[in-house]
């Protein structure tokens, strides 16, 4: 029997909703079947906590006296984007410090703001009649600014590739340190806990879906950049390798630095670990079956990162259950497998979101627009002129 989001919300308000985390749901569906699970369960909560480079924060700094149309802006010596009116800025997570290089960057600014720290603001401008100030040096923190919200262009990848290294030197990548001679394989997906792997065709997750972002309630703003729904899928619809993505938004003033952490990948640069949780309403048996997906049913490909080209060929297809076993065989050798995203934190986020819903403080929303279910990626070609 099908349910509506409205009916589920009524049950949440009455404190009657049955909410399971995605790993609990996998066990439940395996034991009782999807038909039974769809009758008993109202919501499944998912979670992921991984490095998401395509993240950043919009901040309105407030106006100085006399006012200024800021042209170049630095926070703790990290350049931030200021080409938005007078005092709006965007901190990109991977921006690097002018003085400390890869040791400090945009991800650290975002974490430091959440920790309540003061940041040193330096800005310069071309004076105008309405904005006469030329320079400023001062300090800001999360309380002193007006709006501060994370607005991340690409988060919560629906599956991702694995990395290995067939060369004879160590590689330092955003997928971690890769040992020469296929010494290791790294992966970065929460697998069966991950939001979009539990709703493979975006039946319930769409624009306007209320989510957990960094410890605060937030929303799906749009499909994420590089959203690529038209990919190889398993018979149950699960993408094999990178598929859809989400663009997310939430108020930084309500976030906790437990769920947003700055990262430095050695000789690669700065990134940001972002904690995300998405609730999935169990509308019918199909949704119960989707959320029942297990790590042995999710596959991805291993690529040799020593070939830095777009057209590299996959070396092997593996399931997350195999990756979780600690090693896989590759090119006739046993290589150790290691996650880059935190599965413990992914579970914790799914549990926090479950508790929010059970307590009645977090209601589900009906998406106002569906995410694209078809489409693939353009490439950037080197052209001699702007035509063709």
């Amino acid at each position: 029997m099908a349910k509506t989001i409205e009916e589920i919300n009524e049950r949440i308000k009455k404190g009657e909703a049955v909410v399971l985390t995605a790993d609990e749901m996998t066990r439940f569906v395996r034991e009782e079947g999807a038909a039974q699970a769809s009758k008993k369960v109202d919501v499944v909560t998912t979670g992921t906590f991984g490095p998401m480079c395509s993240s950043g924060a919009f901040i309105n700094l407030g106006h100085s006296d006399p006012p200024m149309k800021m042209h170049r802006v630095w926070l703790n010596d990290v350049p931030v984007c200021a080409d938005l009116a007078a005092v709006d800025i965007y901190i990109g997570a991977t921006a690097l410090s002018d003085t400390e290089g890869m040791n400090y960057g945009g991800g650290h600014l975002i974490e430091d703001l959440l920790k309540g720290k003061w940041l040193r603001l330096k800005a310069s401008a071309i004076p105008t009649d309405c904005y006469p100030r030329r320079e400023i040096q001062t300090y800001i923190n999360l309380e002193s600014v007006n709006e501060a919200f994370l607005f991340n262009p690409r988060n919560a990848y629906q599956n991702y590739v694995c990395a290995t290294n067939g060369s004879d030197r160590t590689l330092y990548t955003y997928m971690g340190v890769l040992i020469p001679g296929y010494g290791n394989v790294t992966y970065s997906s929460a697998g069966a806990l991950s939001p979009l792997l539990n709703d493979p065709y975006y039946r319930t997750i769409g624009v306007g879906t209320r989510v957990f972002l960094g410890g605060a309630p937030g929303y799906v703003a749009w499909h994420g950049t590089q959203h690529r729904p038209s990919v190889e899928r398993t018979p149950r619809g699960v993408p094999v390798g990178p598929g859809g993505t989400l663009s997310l938004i939430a108020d930084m003033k309500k976030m906790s630095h437990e769920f947003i952490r700055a990262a430095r990948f050695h000789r690669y640069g700065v990134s940001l670990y972002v904690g995300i949780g998405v609730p999935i309403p169990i509308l019918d048996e199909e949704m119960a079956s989707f959320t029942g997906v297990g790590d042995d049913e999710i596959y991805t490909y291993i690529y040799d990162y020593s070939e830095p080209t777009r057209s590299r060929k996959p070396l092997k297809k593996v399931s997350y259950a195999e990756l979780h076993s600690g090693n896989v065989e590759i090119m006739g050798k046993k290589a150790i497998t290691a996650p880059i995203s935190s599965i413990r934190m992914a579970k914790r986020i799914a549990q926090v979101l479950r508790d929010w819903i059970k307590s009645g403080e977090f209601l589900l929303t009906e998406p106002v627009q569906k995410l694209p279910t078809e489409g693939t990626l353009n490439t950037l070609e080197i052209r001699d002129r702007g035509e063709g």
Partner: protein
Amino acid sequence: MAKRRLVLTFPPEVVERPVVATLVKEFDVLTNILRAQVQEGEVGRMLVELEAEPSAIRAAMRYLEELGVIVEDAIKDIDMNDELCIDCGACTAVCLPRALKIEPPEWKIELDKERCILCGFCVDACPLKIISVRF
């Protein structure tokens, strides 16, 4: 006589060769294998202590490097700031002796100092930069 603690990283083709025996026989270097992670067909790592005249140790190190073995000085100890750890597991990617492990169902990082060969590779591999070495 001098002592020197080294971490040796063997490419798979060298792992099977009797390298340590050669150090003793040809170079007159007393070689004590403190910890080892060596398996046929895989990259292998070893913590060794060499004892000999300094010139003999240098000659032995040159011999190893010519074979393609990566030779590095060992550190004294590693420290992990557990409170800041997010249990991502990125450090386990470089820990061939499996002193650092992360496993289902808890997915919490575990450090077994008995297995640690003090190579220090986990220091760079941790994206939170919470592992430090003592020399």
